[in-house]
């Protein structure tokens, strides 16, 4: 049952070719073009091959992760937010919910949509990481160099980090999708949803700026609030699991304007993210279940 629903949702999402190209597939395509160009240059230019032999190249286990690092940052979240806004608000703008709501429970409709948007994003960024990883591998071949050590321990560690990046991307997509779905339910417009979701994401990413202003003008210390937003906690989880230390945003920490005691513990960040996801999903489902479909 859910497999068919997933297939249908996938067709709808993939069918929005321009949106999917502009916000999701552009990165893998750009990577493909970039490494394709480098490969051609390497084939034609002995000088470039010498540079590759002497220069710095990442080992394979870092190279395959580069794609994920691009999406698991502030910019990546804007892209995901913009795409999910289009996917969710489109159902309202085109009046297409009425084709599905009579035959399916609203909960299953929305959860399938969330899952499919997440899977679509993961697929694109997996493709991106493969292209980058293989691209650097080609450069290593052209330079006649090793592409890093490979053994069971390194591979296990790589798989763990890779899985973590996928999970973080899926979680970030889920949170963005909840923002997008909620906004779409109230605005029912692709364009308005797009801008509202982008603004929400900017506010969430840049929450420190207004908090600093409040601190500066009113001497009111609300700076600790940033420790509860999803962006910080996703970055903090990533930092704990990849470097073994927590994450402090710019302007905070040693030498910064405001010195919090220490970054959130890994467990606390995981708990905060789970609370965000559960709360946002619950509110979104509650609103969708009680909403009149009038378009």
């Amino acid at each position, binding site marked *: 049952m859910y497999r*068919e*629903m997933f297939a*249908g949702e996938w*067709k709808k999402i993939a069918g929005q*070719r321009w949106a999917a190209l502009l916000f999701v597939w552009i990165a893998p395509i750009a990577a493909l073009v970039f490494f394709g160009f480098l490969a051609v240059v390497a084939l034609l230019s002995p000088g470039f091959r010498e540079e590759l032999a002497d220069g710095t190249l990442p080992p394979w286990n870092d190279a395959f992760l580069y794609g994920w690092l691009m999406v698991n940052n502030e910019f990546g979240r804007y892209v995901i937010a913009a795409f999910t806004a289009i996917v969710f608000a489109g159902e309202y703008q085109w009046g297409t919910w009425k084709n*599905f709501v*009579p035959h*399916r429970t609203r909960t299953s409709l929305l959860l399938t949509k969330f899952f499919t948007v997440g899977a679509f994003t993961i697929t694109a960024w997996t493709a991106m990481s493969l292209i980058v990883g293989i691209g650097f591998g080609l450069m290593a071949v052209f330079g006649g160099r090793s592409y890093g050590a490979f053994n069971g321990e390194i591979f296990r560690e790589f798989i763990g980090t890779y899985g973590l990046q996928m999970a973080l991307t899926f979680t970030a997509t889920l949170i963005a999708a909840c923002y997008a779905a909620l906004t779409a339910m109230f605005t029912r417009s692709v364009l308005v949803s797009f801008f509202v979701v982008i603004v929400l994401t900017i506010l969430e990413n840049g929450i420190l700026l207004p908090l600093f202003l409040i601190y500066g003008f009113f001497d009111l210390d609300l700076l600790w609030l940033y420790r509860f937003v999803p962006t910080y906690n996703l970055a903090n989880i990533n930092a704990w699991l990849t470097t073994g230390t927590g994450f402090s945003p710019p302007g905070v920490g040693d030498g910064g304007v405001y010195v919090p005691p220490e970054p959130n513990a890994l467990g606390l960040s995981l708990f905060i993210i789970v609370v965000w996801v559960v709360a946002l999903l619950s509110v979104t489902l509650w609103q969708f279940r009680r909403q009149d479909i*009038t378009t």
Partner: protein
Amino acid sequence: MSQQSAVILDSLTKVFGRRRKIVAVDNVTLRVEAGQVYGFLGPNGAGKTTTIRMMLSLMQPTSGSISLFGKPIHAHHEVLRRVGAHVEGAAFYPYLSGRRNLEVIGQINGYHDSERIDALLRQVGLDHRARQKFRGYSLGMKQRLGLAAALMNDPALLIMDEPTNGLDPAGIQEMRHFLRELVTKHGKTVFLSSHLLNEVEQMCDRVAIINRGVILREGEVKALLQEKPRIRLEAQPIEQAAALLRPHWPLEIVNDHLLVEATRGDIPALLRTLHDNQIDIYEVVQQKQSLEEFFLNVTEGASPDGNLTTAPQEQGMLNHVP
């Protein structure tokens, strides 16, 4: 009894707004027996589409209940899987082809069948345009795709909201035959909302007339149209004839004719009265009331702006009707 009823609406009410409350549907009660074509008539803004949206669980009623095939939909959502619907114009993904749209609807709703999609596209005459993007479809093509989508799950109850909008005369006739056939040959039930009264008169077994959210009249089409029989009479001198008949029958003079509210059984007495008073009689015709006349009588003065917005022939909207 309720086993045989395809639809039962019981005191259905929908109120919009919290401060300024607007009652869109007010205590609507009706029953549609299985195997009928049921017409749901009303001016624009009368509450037809809101009622249909509640029947499809797209909207929550403020109060009252809806049962389909004997099962209340709030407790038995699965009964909606026996329903096909085309509500307020066809709505599809503009960037997908007609066929792809049907595939998506079938897959998400759990009744995907490629062969049925092909058959339906042929049936509605879209097989040669199935690969074209929906955004390029004409209004008539969109309506046809909407019909195909509504039939995909082989529904026992088909709810059609203004299904002939945008169709050309041949398309309207085709749609009429098609819907009628669904009932007579395949035993389906059709709930049809329309303001094309001629169409409803030809297709429906029963009708309900709704205005300002309230059901004004409900019953078999034939019975409703026999409620106010009239005799059209051409006689001279017309003023004298009118003076003789007026004490016995309500009448009005329209052009050179008298329209007398009388039954077929009154005709001999009516003619005797005129003949005994040396009135020349040129023509006597028993006039059947059309559904349009009936509708206008029932809704007259009831529309919010005082205009009968759903008299499409008077508004030039009916140029398609054959």
